[in-house]
């Protein structure tokens, strides 16, 4: 569908990932300098110039598998190590959070405001590091250039494309359950109250006009909800008040975050039925992303299967780690002692 969806998907999911990692780094009392290094390394990788160039090209959305691999590699662009269960939990949280934001956006165009909320927070994470900051600023400009000219209908197409990507995902997230924004069946609460979107009127008025354009009558009807007038519009510039809270850091107040996996088996079964036909392009996608994200050689056909998920065993990771570590601490050995942040994600 829309060929402009991938940048928004990547940036928003990346933003959620950073919120979660930041919260876990604090909760586990990781020393400030190490924590900052993890965050900086990941953000640098996320906004790598070559990667973004590829990301912003018009293209169909990646498959779920291909996108998951990108984030696996992104999460390991630092000295942090995650086992598969932790990575699964992290990814579930990220995707359910963005699904929630997309569903609850009052207007499709507000997805851009959600993206700016994530960008604003990322900018704050790296405000002391000028090199990374300039990469982030450049991305703001690219987002503004690509998305601000789009019409409402084109934004709705992007939103519909994202909703197909998130179809049938009903993983329960305890922070959402506690806040009562998600039901115990995994579905999000859609309130029939509150402010209407910018540009929409509160439903109630029926106006009848004459052939000459004068209003002949007006009546009201019962809208079955409890709506009020729209809030002011958020800013679509590099700086500004976004107005919406969607996309801001919901983990900033320290509270335990967990996922419940029991709801997933049915939904993932439903999903796999539709995607049963093997996608010959999947290998292509993985190769391209692997190249860009990890600086790896193109994998030979036999190697590009899901054994990638057993990340610790994969010797290539040492290479990724080496590529993206700023301070030049190249030796794999150093990361397995002391700096091993594996235990950190167990809190998820």
């Amino acid at each position: 569908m829309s060929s402009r969806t991938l940048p928004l998907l990547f940036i928003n999911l990346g933003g959620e990932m950073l919120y979660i990692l930041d919260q876990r780094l604090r909760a586990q009392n990781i020393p400030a300098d190490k924590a900052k290094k993890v965050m900086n390394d990941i953000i640098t990788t996320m906004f790598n110039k070559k990667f973004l160039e590829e990301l912003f090209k018009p293209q169909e959305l990646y498959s779920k598998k291909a996108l998951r691999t990108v984030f696996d590699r992104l999460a390991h662009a630092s000295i942090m190590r995650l086992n598969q269960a932790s990575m699964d939990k992290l990814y579930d949280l990220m995707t359910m959070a963005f699904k929630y934001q997309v569903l609850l956006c009052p207007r499709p165009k507000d997805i851009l405001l959600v993206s700016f909320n994530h960008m604003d927070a990322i900018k704050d994470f790296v405000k002391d590091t000028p090199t990374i900051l300039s990469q982030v600023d450049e991305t703001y400009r690219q987002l503004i250039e690509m998305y601000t000219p789009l019409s409402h209908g084109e934004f709705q197409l992007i939103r519909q494309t994202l909703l197909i990507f998130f179809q049938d995902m009903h993983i329960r997230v305890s922070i959402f359950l506690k806040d009562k924004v998600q039901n115990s069946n995994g579905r999000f609460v859609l309130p029939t109250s509150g402010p209407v979107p910018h540009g929409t009127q509160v439903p109630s008025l029926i106006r009848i006009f004459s052939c000459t354009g004068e209003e002949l009558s007006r009546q009201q009807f019962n809208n079955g909800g409890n709506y009020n007038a729209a809030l002011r519009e958020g800013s679509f510039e590099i700086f500004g008040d976004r107005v919406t809270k969607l996309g801001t850091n919901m983990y900033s107040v320290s509270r335990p975050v967990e996922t419940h996996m029991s709801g997933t088996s049915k939904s993932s079964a439903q999903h796999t039925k539709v995607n049963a036909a093997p996608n010959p392009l999947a290998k292509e996608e993985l190769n391209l992303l692997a190249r860009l994200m990890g600086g790896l050689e193109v994998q030979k056909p036999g190697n590009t299967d899901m054994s990638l998920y057993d990340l610790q065993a994969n010797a290539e990771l040492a290479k990724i780690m080496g590529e993206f570590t700023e301070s030049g601490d190249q030796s794999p050995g150093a990361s397995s002692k002391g700096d091993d942040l594996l235990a950190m994600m167990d809190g998820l």
Partner: protein
Amino acid sequence: MYHKEKSIQIKNSASALYNNLGVLRIAPRRLTYFTVVHANVVNMVSASWDGLNYSHRQLQSKEPNVATSTSLIMQAAFCALPSRDLLVVTSQKGIQMYESDGSIMVYWHALDTPETPTEQAVFARGISAAWENYICVGVSSGAILVFDVPSKGSNITLSEVLEEHKESITDMASECSGSQECIANLVTADDGGSLCVWKSGEEFQLLNKIPGFDMSCSSVKLWKGTVVAGYGTGQIRLYEAVTGILHAEVNAHARWIYSLDIAPFSGLLLSAAEDSLVRVWLLTMTPETNSVEVAHLHNECVTDTQICGAKFCDGDGYAFAVTGYDLSEIIRYVQS
């Protein structure tokens, strides 16, 4: 006014697409066909009127011979022509036409898809029968393809391409009142909210163009010479088709409207939106004074669901059916 009846379970959940519910009533066989789109699949259910028999079928989007990425389906709709009924399925790659039970594909039209993706998405969307033997389908470029359909067989041909819209086609509809007096028999809508009113024939004639107001018109209907249009702002507008005179404006929904339907014999109007609400209205035309009345009759809230399709199941509006994003059922309501 209406109460909920037993839902029909479908094999997959409905995708968030405009007008995502097709309904065809087959009176002689006492059954109704329903279609609901899920990504690259159309779920078809044939439901017997006694509620005892349901049979399911799935249709896949067709891809060209070279294996490329999945072709997502934008819309599936029934076209009822005097001689035959067809099921039309539009996707990113082209247009498929089937016999109404989905058993045989009778026609395939491939869209010009570029080698590498362009910024402007390519897809077909917006389906309507027109007059006696035409099926019209919209394209993302704004073009409208007019197909000439013979009364039998698969010798369907592309008769004309109408290039009037500048933005992607969203929906289209033919005059459904059955009245022979209406000059206009097709209305087409686009992502900018522009509406074009046509008279169909060997060469389609543009009768009127009603400008949009920078907001997508996602669903449109034509009844007794009146265009009923639903917009992304949640507003419904009624225009006199041939002149473009605005008869009525309703602040109907708190979110983007996804589906409109009219029951032609009674003038009941059904509207459904992302705000979880389905509303039933009554349209009354008074030809002598050339005026239209709109009365609100009923609300149904489908809790925590963004509705993507809503249609009456019969010409009087005695029953209607609803689909929602991520829901694997067709919810039905019947007059009490």
